[in-house]
């Protein structure tokens, strides 16, 4: 009875593995397929011909990659610049309607966003921000704020208050206490929030689709366009490039996002 049951569980997990990993494997196959057409079950010719096309200096991909990373870095800067003071205040100071304030940062994620983005694009158009890096950074920033504000708030809340009062007792001014005690202790959580913001921006599609046109082409947009034109190799290679930072950062994020901070997120 026991081996039979284990075998059955193994079979079910095997089927689950097929459906979870199959699409990713198929993507990887397309990335190294030089020729693949019906009715062949596997690519006829393997190779990296299309990788050269993608990475050619004159190709769009390198430009899009640079654009994407530039936008993601600026988004991190913008998010941290407003979230570090906000997170500190939300964690340590008394604020009226604190719960409502916290909720406000969740709203951009919790609402059907297409309707908002088309109107952001319309407003940006009149301001000359459409199709600019700055415009896309602003849209990404608002979308990612929930991560930076909530996680930095949790990070500051997890800092031991006694250490701050000890520094204060030794005569350090509040700003100095913040810069030399509070901020360094909260740094791992702040870095974790920066990672989430970076990924959120790197992977963002809908906002860029409406606000970035026609001049800003990030990697997700390049991938989408290649896919819709039926160029599966280019689309798959671009998709794989997008997956690298996602997986790499997710592997290291646990190092920065400690349990004591994690438990306080959203609280």
């Amino acid at each position, binding site marked *: 009875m026991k081996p039979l049951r*284990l075998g059955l*569980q193994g079979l079910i997990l095997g089927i*689950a*593995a*097929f*459906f*979870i990993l*199959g*699409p*990713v494997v*198929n*993507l990887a196959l397309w990335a190294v397929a030089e020729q693949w057409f*019906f009715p062949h*079950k596997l690519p006829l010719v393997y190779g990296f011909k299309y990788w050269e096309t993608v990475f050619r200096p004159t190709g769009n991909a390198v430009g899009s990659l640079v654009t994407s990373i530039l936008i993601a870095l600026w988004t991190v800067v913008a998010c941290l*610049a*407003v*979230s570090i003071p*906000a997170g500190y*205040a939300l964690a340590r*100071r*008394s*604020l*009226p309607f604190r719960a409502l304030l916290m909720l*406000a*940062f969740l*709203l*951009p994620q*919790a*609402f*059907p*966003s*297409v*309707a*908002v983005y*088309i*109107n952001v694009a*319309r*407003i940006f158009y009149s301001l000359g921000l459409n199709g600019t890096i700055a415009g896309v950074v*602003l*849209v990404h*920033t*608002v979308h990612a*704020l929930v991560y930076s*504000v909530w996680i930095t708030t949790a990070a500051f809340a997890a800092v031991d208050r006694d250490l701050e009062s000890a520094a204060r007792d030794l005569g350090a001014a509040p700003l100095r206490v913040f810069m030399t005690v509070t901020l360094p202790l909260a740094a791992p959580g702040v870095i974790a929030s920066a990672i989430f913001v970076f990924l959120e921006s790197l*992977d963002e*599609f*809908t906002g860029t*689709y*409406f606000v970035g046109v026609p001049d800003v082409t990030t990697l*997700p947009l390049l*991938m*989408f366009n290649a*896919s*819709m034109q039926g160029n599966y190799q280019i689309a*798959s290679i671009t*998709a794989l490039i*997008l*997956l690298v930072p*996602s*997986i790499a950062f997710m592997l290291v994020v646990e190092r920065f996002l400690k349990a004591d901070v994690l438990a306080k997120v959203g609280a």
Partner: protein
Amino acid sequence: MTENRLTNLLLVAPALLLVVGLFLYPLGYSVAGAFLTKDGRGTLEGFLNVYQLYSTDILFTVVIIGIATILVGLASVAIGGFLVLGTSPVLVGFLKWLYRWPLFIPFVVAGQCMRAFLAKNGLMNNTFVSLGLIEPLQAQSLLDWRGVIIAFVWKQTAFAALLVAGAMAALDRSTIEAAQDMGASRPRILVEIIVPQIRQTLAVTLVLSFVTMLSVLSVPMMVGSGTPTMITVDMAFRINSYGDYTTANALGLVSMVLAGSVAWIYLRHSLREGQPR
């Protein structure tokens, strides 16, 4: 002290201003835009268009996301249950490693994965043919409403299972063990003992999943070819092809009402149970 409060508010103000200026203001703009023509006169034409042209698509959207949400719920409960009740450490460890994969994959990449995997000549059909499960001629492309559901469930289950499994792992194990001692089967323990205790988490997870899937533009564009289609695609079409903000905003209002009503059902339900969150 009052001055201190002002400083505190000033610290939050820049972040809050971003939300107000780049989310709440466009949101208001969207709601107002649904009732205004291009030159700013009041109209109900947008809603007339929505009713005449997009009734089917609205129904289609609700059905697709409804089915996907139910499947996400079932799958995440099954995964969480296996992780909590599984007896083989190897299989439990394998599932723990396996189910998180799509979590790291953006929707737009998930769309591309599915375009390849579910195609007529995709890896899924090819595997089925190789295993002798179907004849080559029976292979059919799933790149339509079925593909959209599969892509949504594939991507969103990872997120839902993460929350659901976390809540299940935090449960007090004594009731589970007591039921086990009394000889209850594991599926029964899952349905009758574990799920009732985590239903709050499950409900929040499913509401979030519903709203997330309602906002996704890339997957229905890439996977769900043909008509009917989802209203996010219709909104993009009204803008890109006609510059018709009135109808697009009216559709946007419909999507907000859909998201809002799901949240409302959830809130009413949890209020009735006397445990609002």
